[in-house]
Every structure is written in C-alpha cells, then in structure tokens.
C-alpha cells in the first residue's frame, strides 16, 4: 500500500517554520528559540523516519516512540519555563525521568517498540492539550499589554490545542487498523491535515511578533 502524497507533503511542511526559524534566529526571543528548537527536532526526526521507512525500508517505530517522549519534554520545557515562567529547575528533571519510565514500560510491556505507540501518543496528546488549556485559562484571567495577535505563545498554543485534542481520539483508535493499511492511511491522511495546520500555527508564532 503506497503512502499517500499528502503524508509526504505534511511532513515536508515543517520546513516552512524551520526555515523561518533559521532565517530569523538572531532576532528570536527565548520563547521563540525554544519553539525553534522543537521545530528543528521535529524536522530532523521526520527526515530520519522517512529515510528509514522509504529508503532503507526499516521499521521506524522505535524512533517514533523516542520522538514522542522527546517532543513532550521539549513542549513541557517551553510552556513551563518560557510561557508560565516558572523557575523550578527540578521540574524538567522530574518530567524527563517520568517520561523515560513511561517510554520503557510502554515500549517493553504495553505497546511493543516496533508497533505504533497508540496509547503513548494519546497520553502525550492529553498532556500537551492540558498545557495549552492552562495557557488559555491564564489568558482569560490576566490582561497584558501584548495583543494576542502578536503573542507567539498564543499562536503556538492554538496550534497545539487543536492538533493534540483532535489527534487524541485518532491515535487512541488507530491501533484498530494496524492490519488494514488502507484505513490506517485514511486516518493518517486526516492527521496530515492537522499536521499542516500545526506547522502553520508554528510558522505564524515565529513571525507574529515585530522583531527589532
């Protein structure tokens, strides 16, 4: 079953925010740099995943398991330190340690490393959505001088909120279609649209603020 072209296109769409981040790197603030680092990680891992699956014809699922843990940790750091502006240094160590435990337990006992990490992905979606929800609740209770349209955190959280809440369901049930590549691809195509939407929001987050 060939991979639909939209899936490649959605993977390639990360190049837009990645190039924007590279182009403006020296003008980015700490929050934007943190987002840029996440974008670079996504770009590299997607590239390697495509190489493994399409060129070397190898199973790239172990990389996907690893990517999910890394992605959540980067998102957590971004929100915790750069948006919510907490200073507690032990928090990321704790989250990292818990993520590694979840990664190991899930990879060995729950979902095998060679299979699609459906539950791990759904859990990641849930936690990432919570981060975005906390951001929006904060925005409701506080009035700041920066308008929303020029706030990178707002655009980023919009993308994250829509992408992860929607994908939570998709990823939780995608296991059902493991042995039906057509339906798996069908779900994956829907995910691709969301992927493009997320990267578009990331791109807006990188350009929305007037840079000096």
């Amino acid at each position: 079953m060939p991979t639909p072209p939209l899936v490649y296109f959605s993977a390639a769409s990360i190049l837009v925010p990645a190039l924007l981040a590279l182009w403006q790197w020296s003008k980015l603030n700490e929050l934007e740099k943190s987002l840029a680092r996440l974008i670079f990680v996504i770009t590299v891992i997607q590239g390697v995943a495509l190489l493994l699956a399409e060129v070397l014809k190898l199973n790239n699922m172990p990389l996907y398991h690893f990517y999910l843990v890394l992605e959540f940790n980067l998102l957590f750091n971004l929100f915790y330190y750069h948006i919510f502006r907490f200073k507690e240094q032990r928090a990321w160590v704790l989250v990292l340690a818990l993520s590694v435990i979840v990664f190991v337990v899930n990879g060995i006992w729950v979902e095998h490393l060679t299979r699609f990490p459906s539950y791990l992905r759904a859990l990641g979606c849930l936690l990432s959505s919570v981060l975005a929800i906390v951001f929006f609740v904060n925005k409701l209770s506080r009035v700041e001088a920066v308008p929303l349209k020029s706030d990178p955190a707002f655009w980023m959280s919009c993308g994250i909120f829509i992408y992860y809440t929607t994908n939570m369901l998709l990823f939780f049930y995608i296991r059902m279609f493991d042995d039906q590549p057509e339906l798996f691809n069908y779900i994956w195509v829907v995910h691709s649209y969301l992927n493009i939407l997320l990267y578009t929001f990331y791109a807006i987050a990188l350009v929305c603020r007037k840079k000096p």
Partner: protein
Amino acid sequence: MQEEALKMADVIVMSSLIIAGLSGLIILFVVVHRQKILRKEIELKQNEALHQKDLLNAAIAAQEMEQARIAKDLHDDLGALLSSLKLRVTHFERQEPSKEAVGVYSSEMKQMLGDGIQSVRRIVNDLLPPVLKDFGLKEGIEELVTNFRKATEIQINASVSWDDKRLPMEMELPIYRITQELFNNSIKHSKARNIWLHILVDEGKLILEYRDDGKGFDPDTQKRNLGFRNFESRTQALEGTFEFSSESGKGFRAFFEFPIKANDNEQ
C-alpha cells in the same frame, strides 16, 4: 468486516473533526472574552484619566478663583485705601495746615492705616490662617467653628478630639480648607438649621464626619460643583478617601478618612 471497519474509521474521523471544531470554538471564546476584558480595562483607564483631568481642572479653577479673590481684595480694600491715603497726603502737602488741621489729618491717616493693617490681616488670614500655622489644625478648626457660629444662625455642633500632636502642614491646610468648604456649602446652599462636625484621630487616621439637615440634593442628577471636585482632589492628594450621601430633603452627609503620615514639622 471491512465495511464495519470503514464505518468505525469514519466515526473516529468525524468525532475528531467535531473535537477540532470545538477546540476552535474554545479558542474563539478565549479571544472574544479577552477582547472584552481588554475593552473594559481601556474604558476604565480612560474614565480614570478623565476623572484625573477633571480633578486637575478643578484644582486649577479653585486656584484661579482664589487668586481672583485675593486680587479683588487687594484692589478693592488695600488698593482703594492706599489711593485715598495718597490723595490725602498730596492734598495735605499743598496746604499750609494749621496745627489743628494737622491733628485732624493725622488722626484720619492713623484710622486709614489701621484699616489697611486690618485688611492685610484679613487677606493673610484667608491665605493661611495664622492660628493654623501657629497652633495647628485642632485650634484652626475651633476658630473656624467660632467664626461660622458668629456669622450664621445655623446651630453648629462640633467635636474635635485628638491629642495635641500637630499634623504635618501639608495635611492641616487641605483638611482645614475642606472643613471650610463644607461649612460654606451648607450655609450658602442647604438652608440647614443644624450642622454636625466630628473630627477624631484614630489608629493613624484622621476621620472627619460632617452632616447637615438642609434640603440636600440628588447626587445622580445634580452636577457636582467645584467645591465637590475640590474635596476629591484634596482627598486624593492626601491619599485619603471621601464618601458622601444626600437625598432631596434629607440633608447631606460626608465622610473623609486621611492616613496620617510622619510629621516632619513636629518638634
């Protein structure tokens, strides 16, 4: 089986799209709500700025009125007196006055100079009452009450009680002026028969309660006069609070509270 799986996939995709729509709506709600808060905040700031401008205008108007009054006093009283004194002296020089006439002139001039001195005293007293400067707010208010009692038939019931510690001058004069303005308002506009004034110092605060049983006014419909805006600007300058209540036919009440700052003048 395949069909069932396809249906299932459709349901999952549809549900996900509904969730996406709901997420979008939540974001829209956040944006709209925040805009609303922001608009309210801007409105509040604009109102505050307008109020501040109003108070500043009131302070400037009061100052100008005061200056105009002083100018009038100087011109009408002292100016007129000095002019007539000059005329008298010129007239006196042109004559070859007899001993008797010198005595009359001298007595007239003494009288005029005495009036002039009185006039200067009155002007100075209006600018900064010496009793306030020399003895402090408590004595100043007591003198004010005595003067108003003499000048009007309204029954003034005053109790001014605190230990004899002086307050900072930057507090004493505005509070004195506020009290003076309260009395003036009641006497000029209220047709009151009684006035009650109660001033006390308690827990680092000076509390001033004022009441009259005059005709009152409707605060919602009646435009605030300059005196009222002066109360507000003076109270604000002292970081105090000012509340009042009034109703047509039910008199007027005002309540002021001023924090007492450390007294640099205290010896």
